[in-house]
């Protein structure tokens, strides 16, 4: 038992330690309690009025899901007001989410829905809406409307009643939809960055705990942000009640329910939010099981079961839980041109990243990158060899460069690249509006170094992956990988950027061209080498970056890697010319659950790309096969040492002492 916590008396205090409850999620986000109030907007259900089916689900007497039905005849404003008063008296919560619960809350024309939702959101203290509906009843314009509320900063949850992933069970309870409709709704909602809370019922006719666990796996594979679990209860005036009376349906015991819920909690990745772990029905309607009437007893049973097992949410989740591209760690390699692309693909990259030759990406170097035809061929080459192609389009376009950036984005989508890597919120928005379905990765230039920043891009634009700036420690990377709803990509090898990417204007300060606006740092055209009696010196737009004594190896004058005078010392005051190499901590990165490891260096030669890719492929495969017994091999280290900038290597910010 956790020290200092009395489970028996305050189960609601102990639960959030082991489970990412909605309360814990809201507290983390808003710093205070947030409560949902149920709204009945007078909808019906397409499974009742004949448009999808007649009679509804066999277990449904909707009054049993709507504890406050007496409020349903009132306007939304009155329902919010009376709900607010109750919530504040009982829990002290000041922030509210209007939960459109009863029946199918997207079953009306869009203008009526907008009016209803707007009315709820206009009420004081209401910070968001949760919309309960069926997976076969979420028209795209409704999803667009919900996405619009998210743009405006509201908390929005789309609650999809799936109940089971088994089509034969769904048919048996006359649900009127199958898993395919759910999958379709999830894809369309995800494309708009809408968080989904999926409802599952435990104990449906013909189902056991094993069915619930498999349903959960199907839901997790598609990706989900929230879950609601309910026991199936038998209520009056339903077909299920008749079946129960005739002995055709036997309800679960409370212990069996609690055990199954704990199984599901253990299998669910830690970042998924549990909105509910059980449900109750009004006493005058409930027939069986009788324990359903006592919510806290059920919660208590779940809590005790978790404590006895000594487990918590995510205990048995797959190592790279959440909506991942595939369940392994991808090796993402640089392709500055067609030859380098072939080198990366041939030597074992899982994905290559490229850019157009139009100044729209962060390696705007002369002679690098692809034109449209070259990229089309490159995509064919890579796809034929089962390698993904990611396209970097990570400048922040000024109005002057906007048309070029948009054109690049559209061409990338046409060429069916596997994802585009963007940084600019304007371009991200354009992609979500004009090119839905295009997979979006947030570039390292997006400077997202914490979970709220990642959440911002995820919720607004539905990004699926974030490339982390090279400023976080290993512990911080692990924390983000655990907390984040999107995949995490980290830099593993190559030149080291000492500044937060996207937050450095040193290059434009000296040369007029910056990574943000022009996709370049310390451009070669601004470099001047000079021979002096005491050695060589390098200048960047006339500013002296370094002086090398005779015989000393002279490196490229990247301006943060020069030697400067601070106090009375001349030294590498910002950073040495050194390369990043994470081989040493590969098992930690793998165990942390990062989705991809990236190699820097689109400006490098095909031979370099081949060697680095081959070496890292071997290392990563060895590590993935058995992370616990992974040892860095000498030949890998020797090869990478030869190739590293300045022939020296560092763990960079992953290691605290470096910072």
């Amino acid at each position, binding site marked *: 038992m956790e020290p200092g916590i009395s489970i028996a008396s305050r189960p609601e205090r102990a639960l959030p330690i082991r489970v990412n409850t909605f309360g814990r999620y809201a507290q983390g986000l808003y710093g205070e309690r947030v409560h949902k109030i149920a709204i009945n907007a007078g909808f019906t259900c397409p499974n009742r009025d004949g448009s999808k089916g007649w009679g509804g689900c066999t277990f449904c007497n909707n009054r049993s899901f709507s504890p406050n039905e007496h409020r349903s005849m009132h306007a939304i404003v009155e329902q919010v007001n009376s709900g607010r008063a109750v919530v504040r008296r009982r829990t002290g919560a000041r922030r509210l989410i209007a939960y459109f619960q009863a029946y199918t809350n997207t079953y009306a024309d869009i203008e009526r829905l907008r009016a209803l939702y707007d009315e709820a959101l206009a009420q004081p203290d209401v910070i968001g809406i949760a919309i309960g509906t069926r997976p076969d009843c979420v028209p795209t314009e409704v999803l667009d409307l919900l996405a619009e509320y998210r743009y405006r900063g509201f908390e929005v949850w789309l609650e999809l009643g799936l109940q089971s992933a088994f089509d034969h069970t769904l048919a048996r309870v006359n649900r009127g939809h199958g898993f395919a409709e759910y999958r379709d709704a999830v894809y369309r909602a995800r494309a708009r960055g809408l968080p989904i809370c999926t409802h599952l019922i435990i104990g449906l006719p013909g189902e056991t705990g094993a069915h619930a666990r498999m349903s959960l796996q199907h839901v997790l594979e598609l990706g989900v942000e929230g879950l609601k679990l309910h026991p199936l209860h038998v209520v009056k005036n339903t077909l299920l009640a008749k079946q129960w009376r005739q002995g055709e349906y036997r309800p679960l015991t409370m212990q069996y329910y609690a055990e199954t819920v704990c199984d599901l909690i253990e299998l669910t990745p830690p970042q998924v939010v549990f909105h509910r772990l059980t449900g109750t029905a009004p006493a005058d309607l409930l027939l069986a099981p009788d324990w359903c009437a006592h919510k806290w007893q059920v919660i208590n049973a779940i809590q005790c079961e978790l404590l006895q097992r000594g487990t918590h949410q995510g205990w048995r989740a797959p190592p790279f839980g959440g909506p991942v591209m595939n369940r392994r760690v991808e090796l993402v390699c640089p392709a500055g041109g067609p030859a380098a692309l072939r080198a990366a693909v041939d030597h074992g990259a899982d994905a290559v990243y490229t850019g157009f030759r139009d100044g729209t990406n962060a390696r705007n170097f002369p002679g690098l990158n692809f034109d449209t035809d070259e990229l089309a061929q490159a995509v064919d080459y890579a796809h034929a060899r089962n390698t993904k192609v990611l396209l970097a389009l990570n400048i922040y376009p000024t109005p*002057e460069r906007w048309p070029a950036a948009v054109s690049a984005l559209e061409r990338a989508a046409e060429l069916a690249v596997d994802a585009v890597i963007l940084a600019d*919120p*304007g371009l991200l928005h354009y992609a979500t509006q004009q090119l839905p379905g295009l997979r979006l990765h947030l570039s390292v230039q997006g*400077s997202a170094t914490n979970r*709220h920043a990642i959440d911002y891009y995820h919720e607004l634009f539905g990004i699926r992956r974030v490339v982390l700036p090279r400023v976080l420690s290993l512990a911080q990377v692990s924390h983000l990988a655990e907390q984040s709803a999107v995949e995490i990509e980290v830099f593993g090898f190559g030149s080291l950027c000492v*500044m937060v990417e996207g*937050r450095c*204007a*040193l290059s434009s300060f000296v040369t007029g061209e910056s990574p943000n606006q022009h996709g370049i740092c310390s451009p070669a055209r601004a470099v001047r080498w000079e021979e002096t009696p005491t050695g060589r010196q390098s200048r960047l737009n006339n500013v002296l970056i370094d002086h090398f004594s005779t015989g000393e190896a002279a490196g490229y004058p990247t301006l943060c890697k020069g030697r400067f005078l601070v*106090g009375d010392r001349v030294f590498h005051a910002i950073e040495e010319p050194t390369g990043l190499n994470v081989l040493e901590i590969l098992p930690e990165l793998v165990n942390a659950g990062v989705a991809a490891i990236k190699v820097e260096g689109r400006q490098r030669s095909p031979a370099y790309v081949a060697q680095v890719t081959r070496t890292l492929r071997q290392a990563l495969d060895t590590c993935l096969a058995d992370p616990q017994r992974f040892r860095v091999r000498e030949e890998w280290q020797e090869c990478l040492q030869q190739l590293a900038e300045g022939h020296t290597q560092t763990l960079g910010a992953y290691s605290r002492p470096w910072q």
Partner: protein
Amino acid sequence: MRLALGPLLYYWDRESIFDFYKSIQDTAVDIVYLGEVVCGKRRTMRLPDWLQIGEELAAAGKEVVLSTLALIEAESELATLRKICANGRFPVEANDMAAVYALAKLKQPFIGGPHLNIYNPEALAMLACSGARRWTIPVEMSASTLAAIQAQRPAQIETEVFALGRLPLAFSARCFTARAHGHGKDDCGFVCAQYPEGLPLYTQEKEPFLILNGIQTQSASLYSLVEHLEELEQLEVDVVRVSPFPGQMAEIIELLHAAVMDTAKAEKTAAAIQEHLTLPVNDGYWRGRPGIGGT
């Protein structure tokens, strides 16, 4: 145009900070940004201290804004951020998308700081959607780019320009002041407190180049748009920001205020301000050239 005093970027002791903002009360500045933007480890000033200074400045008729960190990594920094965002008294300047996220969730209208990387009207519209009522242009933005954005600026969002001060050029995980002292960031010993005006970095030819200020790198020279105030006004800029730098800030604010009030005479005031400045100036960014270049 209104005049804003940007957040204090150096690490001073409490008394000096309280004294400094007392001296600001009687100046003509309209808006004052308060709070720590550079380093989450600097903790001599807590939120209640900033709120106290804020109340005093508000009583003196200033619009007060609470600034937030530009680089947020730790959960503790996020917790502080959420506290600032939920302060309930003063609006907040977001310097990271984490702040934008937190403020949008709280439905608090906010000010976008210079580190948010807004480079086009489409991105600005997204920021406005999230609740920004003012944005600050990135320091490297040129006049012609700003003109193009202003032409398509969403309604009801004000534009602020960093117009006088050392350029905040870069942030890093690494503390460069600690590095110069041979320390790591984890045991920095708060050496940045020894440099109330930052630690100068020179080229090997002894040319002043950059200023190391903890994890931040600034320009050694001052960015000054004093000569361009008339152009700022034509571009419908709403707020002009001066960032605290070594020198007689109160006097400089008075001169700058006079210049802002009567931009036609800005050239004359520029000369007067120049006399008060002990540092060389640059305006290359505004002209679409390397930032280091001067007039």
